[in-house]
Each structure stands twice: as structure tokens, then as C-alpha cells.
């Protein structure tokens, strides 16, 4: 379990992360969603003890990362697949990493096999394609057989096959009861991989919910209504507590379903020419939500 409590990070006068609190639970994939520059990587670096928070703290099963005795056995992370010396072989890279946490040398070959890099284990990591580098990064994350895993934008730049592989891997790890925390700036990606979503914008928490709750809330629809008796209908709708925008003979109604509007119109004897539910796209809703955070952030 990862607990983030009031986490903040300032660089001089700019604030990258402000007062962020959330919990990442085991047994599911938790998506960390936000536009580029929202503070996702900074938050992950603070969870891993790489960056010092300006305020608040992050705990791994109740312990700050820096106090873990053999952190790789508890937490595996892939922050950037290019963090490898290009002239060192994949196997040597994992060999020194295994040694830091007293992991048996046999683990190196196990994880290389698990990510399908055995054939190129002795090749220079600098010659790897992005997909292979990503696999090496995942091998380093899995090295200590950790309960908690963090992946920062793991599918960026991968081909469809690589994306499918990573999705399957993350879901498999969560099924084994591990805590899987994965960031992305793409909602479509997250909606296919994650069970739960933590959404941030401008370094602030926007929501933490299940994916289906987020989708339902984010795409909460409006209804387009056309009627020759708009004024009467509008009065009735407002009375019912709906939000109404008028554009000539057309009303855009929020807060009521099309069924409720139709029944209301019938009760008031209003003729309807059109009754059309408008479902916003998920991406649109996400942009609206995070754009709101931008305005909020600068006020």
C-alpha cells in the first residue's frame, strides 16, 4: 500500500505538486492520470525518496521509502527506461542492481527470462530498441519480487504488441495481490488498464475513484430539447432544479435525464420537437476536468 499525505513540491516560485493526498491499495491497478506536467513523475520520485518533498510525506506500508532496509524487495519501479549505462550489458545492469539488495544472482536470469530478454542479455543496453529498454526497466522493477510496483508512463512510445504485453503484465501483477501504481497522460489507456483512478492536474488532486465512477461522473450528460414553447418548458425545468441554457428554440438541459424531461413536458402539456441526450466523450470530459484545475491552480 502506498499512502501519500499532504505531499507538496516547490521549485523556487513554481509549485509542481501541492497538498496531494491519496492511497494506492493492493490487488488492483491504480492509474495515476493527469496531463503532461501535472506532477505525476515528481510525485513518484518523492514516493521513491529520490526527491525531497517540500511538505507532507509518502509511506510504503507505513514506512518512508528512505527507511526501507532492502527497498527493491518491497518496491519495484520503472521511472525511465533510459536510466541504463549504454555500454553495460543488460545482464550486468541487473547484476549490480541485484547485489545492492542482496538478491540471489539467479534472480537476474529469472527476470530476464520473464521479460523475454534472455537472448540479448549480454548485449550492450545502448543498442536496445525502446521496447527492449522498457522490458529491461520492467525486469529491474521485478528483480526484488516486490509487493508494490510503480510504473511511470510505461507504454509511451511502444508498439501495439508492447502495449498489450505491459497491460497484461500489470493486470497479472495486481491479480497476484500486489499494489500496482501506473501513471499515464492518456485517459483511454488508463480506462483499459486501471481499476481505480487518481486524477491530478497542476499538481492538485482532482479525484480518486473507480474507473467506472470516474467515467460516469465525467461524462454526465446534458439533454438537447427543442420545443415551440421553450419559455414554458424552461420555467418548469428551472423549477425542477435543472440547469438550462437557451439558444433560440433549443434548450440544453443539465441535471435531468431525457425521460424526466419528457415526463415533465407531458405534465405541462408542452410539445417537444426534439429530445436528444448528449453524451460527452471521455477525453472531452477529462480535458474539461484538468483544464479546470489549470484555472484553479493559478488563482
Amino acid at each position, binding site marked *: 500500500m502506498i499512502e501519500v499525505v499532504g505531499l507538496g513540491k516547490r521549485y523556487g516560485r513554481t509549485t509542481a505538486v501541492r497538498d496531494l493526498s491519496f492511497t494506492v491499495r493492493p490487488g488492483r491497478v491504480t492509474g495515476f492520470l493527469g496531463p503532461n506536467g501535472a506532477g505525476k513523475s515528481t510525485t513518484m520520485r518523492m514516493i521513491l*525518496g529520490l526527491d525531497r518533498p517540500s511538505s507532507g510525506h509518502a509511506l510504503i506500508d507505513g514506512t518512508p521509502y528512505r527507511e526501507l532496509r532492502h527497498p527493491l524487495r518491497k518496491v519495484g519501479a520503472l521511472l525511465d527506461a533510459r*536510466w541504463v549505462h549504454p555500454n553495460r550489458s543488460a545482464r550486468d545492469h541487473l547484476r549490480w542492481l541485484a547485489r545492492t539488495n542482496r538478491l540471489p544472482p539467479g534472480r537476474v536470469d529469472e527476470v530476464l527470462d520473464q521479460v523475454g530478454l534472455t537472448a540479448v542479455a549480454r548485449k550492450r543496453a545502448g543498442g536496445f530498441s525502446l521496447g527492449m529498454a522498457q522490458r529491461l526497466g520492467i525486469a529491474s522493477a521485478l528483480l526484488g519480487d516486490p509487493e508494490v510496483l510503480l510504473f511511470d508512463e510505461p507504454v509511451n512510445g511502444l508498439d501495439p504488441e508492447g502495449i498489450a504485453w505491459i497491460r497484461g503484465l500489470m493486470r497479472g501483477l495486481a491479480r497476484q495481490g500486489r499494489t500496482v501504481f501506473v501513471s499515464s497522460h492518456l485517459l483511454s489507456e488508463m480506462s483499459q488498464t486501471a481499476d481505480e483512478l487518481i486524477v491530478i492536474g497542476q499538481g492538485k488532486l482532482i479525484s480518486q475513484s473507480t474507473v467506472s465512477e470516474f467515467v460516469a461522473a465525467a461524462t454526465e450528460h446534458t439533454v438537447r430539447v427543442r420545443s415551440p414553447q421553450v419559455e414554458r418548458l424552461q420555467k418548469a425545468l428551472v423549477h425542477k432544479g435543472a440547469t438550462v441554457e437557451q439558444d433560440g428554440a433549443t434548450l440544453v438541459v443539465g441535471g435531468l435525464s431525457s425521460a424526466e424531461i419528457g415526463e415533465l413536458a407531458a405534465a405541462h402539456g408542452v410539445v417537444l420537437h426534439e429530445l436528444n441526450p448528449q453524451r460527452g466523450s471521455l477525453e472531452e470530459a477529462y480535458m474539461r476536468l484538468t483544464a479546470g484545475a489549470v484555472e484553479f491552480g493559478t488563482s
Partner: protein
Amino acid sequence: MNLLAVERIKLFSTRSPWFCMIGALGLTVGFASILAIKSEHVSVGATQGMYLLGLMVVMVMSTLAVTTEYRFGTIRTTFQAVPRRTGALLAKTTVVALVAGLVGEVAAFGSLGAAKLLQPGAALSLSTAADWRAVAGSGLVYALAGVMAVAVGVLVRQSAGAVAILLVVPLLVENLVGLIPDLGAKIQPWLPFQAAGAFLRGTHEGAPYSPWGALAYFAVLAAVLLGAALVVAKKRDA
């Protein structure tokens, strides 16, 4: 012990440290060999003539051991695996210093041995304490310079910057300071590589320290730099 093994794997699993070590030995021993062939009266001190050049190469190796980690991001992986950064960096410093010291000893005795082999008639036995210091002392200077190079690498984090500092200070700045009238001669003994040289070559009349005092001073400078580097690395975001 574990962290020492980690740093040993890191250092020897890429090629550039090997090139640097071979380069340092080639320069020093090669120069001593040429000198021995050309001169029948080659002395112990003369065989060590290229010590500073070999030292430069070893310092480049030492600082690259750190700056390449910053360049390629492996320092973050390291700190992620070993959150006690001081321990991780001390292990690296120790491994680098041991390797640098070993290269220094091999370079010094290799130079002497090559000269002996090529000019058997020359007076090349280590008969005085000063002779021993001039040769065996190289390893100590190389090891301490390795510590300084690691510290500069941690502080600067950039290969080009760190290498420039480590080459320009001993080869250029320290010599130019001597050109300042009056003051230059007073400051010069307190410059790090002048002190290291005084330890190996012996001190002049009126020097502010004995040869071993000069080495102690050099060691203090290395320790201060290393201390600063450890403090900075601990506080800084990786």
C-alpha cells in the same frame, strides 16, 4: 562489503575504465622506457617523470565513474536501490580510490622496472627513504586524487565540467599562480597538486611542510571535498 561489490561490478562492466587504466600505465611506463633507452644516467626520480600525466588519466577515470551515472540516470537507480546515499557514494569512492592507488603503484614500479630492464647499468636501486617515497608514494597520491575526482564529479555532475576542472587546475592554474610576483610563491605550496608533488619529489628548503606533511595536507583537501560532496548529494534531489 556488499556495496563495494556493487561498485566494483559497475566500474568493471563498462570499457572506459579499462581504457583509462591501460592509458595511464602506457603513458607512464612508456615514457620511462624511452627515457631509459636514451639516457645511461637515468635516475629514480626521472623514471617517475610522467606521474602527473598518468594521474590526470586516472582522475578522468575516477570522475567519469560518477558523472556517467548522472549522465545516464543510473545514479537515480542506485539511490532508489540504496536510499542511504552516503553509504553508496562512500563505497564508490573506496572502490575508485583502491583502483586508482593500484594503478599508481603499478605505474610507478612499472616505470622503474622498465628502466632497470632497459638500462641495467644505471643507478636505479631504491636506496634512500626519498627514493622509496618517490616511487611507492605514487599509489597514495593516485588514490587521494581519485577521491578528489569522485567528489568533484558528485558536485559538478557533468563529465565535461568535471574533467575540465580536474585537468585545468593541476596543469594550468597551479602553475600560473606561481607567476604572480611575491604572493605566488607563498600561495603555491598550498595548492593541492603542488603539495602532492612536494610529497613525491621532496620539499625545498623553507617549504611550509615536510614531505609527509604535504601528503597529509593533500589528504585533508580530499576529505574536505568528499565531505562537501556527500552533504550535497544527500540534500539534493537525485
